[in-house]
């Protein structure tokens, strides 16, 4: 009787494990197959890229898609614009978050309560809700249709400032004190003690900024008009969106479109592979923050 029950529950467990594995496998495949398909099609010839087969490997490998992408679609310029905006924007974002976060770790100074409020309230003001007045502001500052507008937007974020503040607060105060005793200046203490010890935080913010700036879309839609200032996402959009909407342009073959997708996700995947632990860390902090 009892052994019967145990074997029954063992059987149930096995059934569950099999079903569980199958479902997870299917889900994983739903992510992997499209990506392999995209990669495979990007290396097909123009004609093969329109074939109705589930292509996981190009029959007749060719780089014509990439050549079209760089020659006729001229993706290099948007790619470089994107790189500039991403690198400069990320660097400045991390720098400003670090110095502001460091400032907020100080215990007592005039107007601290007000400053903390002014830093935290913007978290409640989503960019999407103020696109019209932000556009007006950008216009007033003369930044419309410049890459500066894309660098300036999101150059400061409450989340990053608070994250840096938390990291700095985790650093033992005795370190700074002994440096102060030795006659070190505030700047030296910040750059020689605080920054190196808060590197994990800096890495987390850098990576998140890198990804979100690389993918930045709405600001580019709003602020950029001339093709020479296009970022990758804008250029990619006109490439991949269905043709009847962009009928004025010449027919672009599927291989070229998929090549566009490939070159825009390769940097992201590289960052993901090399910095996975910071992704998880940053996500945790982000969720706990609320």
């Amino acid at each position, binding site marked *: 009787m009892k052994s019967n029950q145990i074997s029954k529950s063992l059987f149930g467990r096995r059934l569950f494990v099999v079903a569980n594995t199958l479902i997870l496998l299917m889900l994983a495949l739903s992510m*992997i197959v499209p990506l392999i398909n995209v990669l495979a099609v990007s290396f097909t010839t123009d004609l093969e890229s*329109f074939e109705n087969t589930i292509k996981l490997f190009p029959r007749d490998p060719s780089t014509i898609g990439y050549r079209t992408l760089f020659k006729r679609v001229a993706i290099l310029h948007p790619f470089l614009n994107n790189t500039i905006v991403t690198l400069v924007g990320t660097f400045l974002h991390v720098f400003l978050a670090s110095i502001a976060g460091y400032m907020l770790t100080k215990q007592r100074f005039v107007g601290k309560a007000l400053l903390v409020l002014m*830093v935290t309230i913007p978290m409640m003001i989503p960019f999407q*809700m103020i*696109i*019209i007045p932000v556009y007006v502001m950008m216009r007033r500052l003369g930044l419309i249709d410049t890459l500066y507008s894309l660098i300036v937007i999101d150059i400061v974020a409450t989340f990053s400032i608070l994250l840096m503040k938390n990291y700095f607060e985790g650093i033992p105060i005795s370190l700074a004190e002994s440096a102060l005793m030795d006659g070190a200046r505030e700047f030296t203490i910040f750059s020689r003690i605080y920054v190196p010890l808060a590197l994990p935080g800096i890495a987390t913010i850098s990576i998140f900024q890198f990804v979100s700036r690389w993918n930045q879309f*709405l600001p580019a839609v709003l602020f950029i008009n001339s093709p020479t200032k296009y970022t990758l996402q804008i250029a990619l959009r006109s490439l991949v969106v269905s043709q009847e909407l962009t009928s004025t342009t010449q027919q672009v073959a599927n291989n070229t479109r998929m090549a566009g997708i490939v070159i825009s996700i390769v940097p992201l995947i590289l960052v993901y592979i090399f910095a996975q632990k910071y992704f998880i860390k940053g996500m945790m902090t982000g969720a706990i923050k609320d």
Partner: protein
Amino acid sequence: MGKNPDREVRMSSIARTAYRARKDWMLYVLILPALMYFILFAFLPVAEGANISFQNYRFVGESEYIGFQNYQRVFETAGFWRVFRNTVILGFSNVLLTAFIPMLLALMLNEVMFSPWKRFVQTILYLPHLFSWVVVGGIWIFILAPNGGIVNSIRGLFGADPVFFLVKENLARSLYIGINLWKQAGFVCILFLAAIAGINPELYEAAMIDGAGGFMRAMYITVPELMRTLKVVLLLNVMGALRIFDQIYVMRNEVVAPKVDVLMYYVYIRGLEQFDLGYASAISVFIFLITLVITLIARRFMKYNV
């Protein structure tokens, strides 16, 4: 305790005050860029947005105050209520689906004993979250395309005619919701997995001693312990729901537009394509107020129930 260097440093009081003043001056410089940014790109725009919403605002020429006329026009347009409805339907589905399905996924992944497989699935599921909506939209437009797309290729194997899924009006919302789930599920799932990792193992040990099986343990220990995370996720999703823009901007077409055009897209078109800035601002202010109310209610709800 001991966090304040000032208190610890031994100096004469005059020297200390002088030192403090100099240091404080430095401090304000450190936060000045952040403050300027928030003033220029958050506080002023909120005020200015409200201001514009009461004017027939123009970039060039005179703008005049017209009271609540913009708001009146907003609430009287059928177009506004259509996109409002779409936003609520898409948003509500996204809020629920991208909370409960990832939670289920996390419970399933938690039962996986072979950790390389678990890590592999986790990593793969997270991938689409890294990509922009242009990329995700582009991939799906291709997957669902009538020529060359995977779905129609599979249908072709069974002799079915290709279908142009993205211009099927009655399919549009489900597709958009499904694709959003595809993009976000892995990310939300990892939040749940982290919460599961933080559950006190003694709870499980006690349950094992009491003879609870895997299912019972999940139902009576893991799920209740995940409620806090679930609330956080729901709140994050609600915040995101009213802001849907990128996905629609990338994936929409004129055929399905009546079913999928959302508030933010409408604001963009009316404001920055048709330059009806007062009208668009009135909508923004309206959505902003709704968001604020929802946030406050949700926060209060969360505080009392944790």
